């Protein structure tokens, strides 16, 4: 049983403690609370560096100290506090850094509301448990044999076929009917690779539709997209040793993953509004009357500073888009402003929740919209790598990991 230490303030009073426990149970884990004394709480500043007005946050910090002093008490850590609490946001971030710097325990940081459900937490919790349970598998650096991967995403379904550490075929279709789209993408990848389905030694599946698709194909590996994409990204970018940061701006949500030796150490997944996702860029391309694949190149010619754009909400973002065009702004400036706005939100919301260490690898379909990695580079002041096959990252990760299950 995987033990997840809960360092939190507010879940019981937000009515979501049961949801946390339900999500943990679903992934075969148990929530634990490290034992601390009153003295540990009263003297928390000496060991953690600060004491705050809210006692439950001091208790969370004291528990963090206890875990660092006794790492055997837990296998993973979740740090959870109420959304919109400034005091808690500071401490949540500091606890995450504290655990990250002083131990090898994977950490999940999350701010909740009363609307947070077990379903919201499930993928995150699954990733946390995977990093503990399948450490050996995740440490795998090369793909062997003939394997395939399917990434059943919210917007597109991707598939790859790999042979002896090389991608030999890819397939990419919009997600319409989940199973049919997976069939189509898989067929496309098989046909590009020139192999038959029966020859595939192992199939790995990830993404939103993974359970349905995994069952349909009787896949050997059905895994959430955080660990799989992290693995795929460091494999494709040839950054399997040491630290790396993976940014995946998806069609429906965004992921930021701090990776060490190919294994996620901390991650966030979310996005308040579609305004911070690939969906907004699609909408921008449509409004500009161009194909989404041309948006990035157009953006590279533009300057975001010439357009006032705020896509914090997709409705307001669309208004900005319409207003700027009606005021005579150039399409290239609007395209870059849209890229910058999405990148800025991911920077402000997601990248503050993980340790950003070089190399920074951008993956997923949106990473091919050239303006987006460029905007991220300018925000981070760091070179951003977009590896070949970046849009197939989940399928590559699944194909690579499933090859590890074929041995023994």
């Amino acid at each position, binding site marked *: 049983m995987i033990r997840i230490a809960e360092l939190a303030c*507010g*879940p019981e*009073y937000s009515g979501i403690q049961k949801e946390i426990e339900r999500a943990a149970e679903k992934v075969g884990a148990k929530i634990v609370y490290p034992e601390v004394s009153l003295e540990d*709480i009263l003297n928390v500043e000496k060991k953690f560096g600060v004491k705050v*007005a*809210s006692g439950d*946050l001091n208790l969370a910090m004291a528990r963090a100290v206890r875990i660092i002093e006794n790492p055997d008490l837990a296998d993973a850590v979740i740090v959870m506090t109420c959304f919109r609490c400034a005091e808690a946001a500071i401490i949540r971030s500091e606890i995450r850094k504290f655990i990250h710097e002083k131990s090898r325990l994977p950490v999940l940081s999350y701010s909740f509301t009363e609307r947070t459900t077990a379903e919201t937490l499930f993928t995150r919790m699954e990733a946390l448990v995977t990093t503990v349970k399948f450490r050996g598998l995740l440490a795998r650096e090369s793909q062997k044999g003939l394997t395939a991967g399917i990434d059943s995403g919210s917007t597109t379904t991707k598939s790859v076929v790999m042979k002896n550490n090389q991608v030999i075929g890819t397939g990419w279709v919009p997600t319409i009917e989940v199973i049919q789209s997976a069939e189509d993408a898989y067929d496309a990848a098989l046909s590009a690779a020139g192999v038959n389905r029966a020859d595939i030694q192992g199939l790995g599946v990830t993404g939103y539709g993974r359970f349905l698709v995994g069952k349909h194909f009787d896949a050997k590996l059905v895994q959430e997209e955080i660990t799989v994409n992290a693995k795929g990204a460091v494999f494709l970018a040839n950054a399997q040793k040491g630290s790396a940061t993976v940014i995946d701006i998806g069609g429906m949500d965004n992921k930021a993953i701090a990776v060490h030796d190919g294994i996620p150490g901390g991650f966030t997944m979310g996005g308040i509004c579609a305004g911070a996702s690939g969906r907004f860029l699609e909408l921008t391309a449509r409004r500009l009357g161009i194909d989404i694949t041309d948006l990035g190149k157009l953006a590279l010619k533009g300057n975001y500073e010439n357009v006032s754009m705020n896509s914090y909400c997709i409705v307001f973002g669309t208004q900005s888009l319409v207003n700027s065009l009606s005021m005579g702004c150039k399409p290239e400036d609007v395209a870059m402003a849209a890229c910058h706005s999405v990148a800025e939100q991911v920077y402000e919301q997601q990248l503050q929740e993980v340790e950003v260490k070089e190399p920074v690898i951008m993956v997923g379909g949106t990473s091919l919209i050239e303006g987006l990695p460029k905007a991220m580079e300018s925000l981070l002041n760091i070179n951003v790598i977009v590896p070949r096959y970046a849009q197939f990252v989940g399928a590559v990760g699944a194909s690579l990991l499933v090859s590890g299950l074929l041995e023994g």
Partner: protein
Amino acid sequence: MAKVIVYPLTSTILADLVERMGHESLVIPTEVRKKIISTSIDSPPLNITPDDPKKGLKWAAVDVPSGVRGRMAIIGPLIEAAEAAIIIDDPGCLTGCSGCNRANELVRLLIKTKGIPVLEMNYPEDENEARGFVRKIKIFLEGLK
């Protein structure tokens, strides 16, 4: 007999002194008891459900963190029922039901602006202060009869 709300709402000392001096102390555990004996809900440990932060909107706006509003769903009715209050100004270690300082600040504000008799004091640090502490509470509570 007056209904006296105490702050911290989880204080053993204040609840005991109020009760031993013949008044009713308004404390969180009695509210928690109501929640946990209700068999129709199952949201351990406190049976606070996501509906409670919504009930808390009566005392705090929607942009106030859910943990504050959830606490207010329990504490708000106690404040409304209170006829007098004893407040410790610097209570030191507060955890659990009193573990959120934003909620505690709101609770103190609502008590103090309600217009009921309020006794404010600090916890005693020596025997002399302790005698003053008990004496002040006794005089305050006798004045409520």
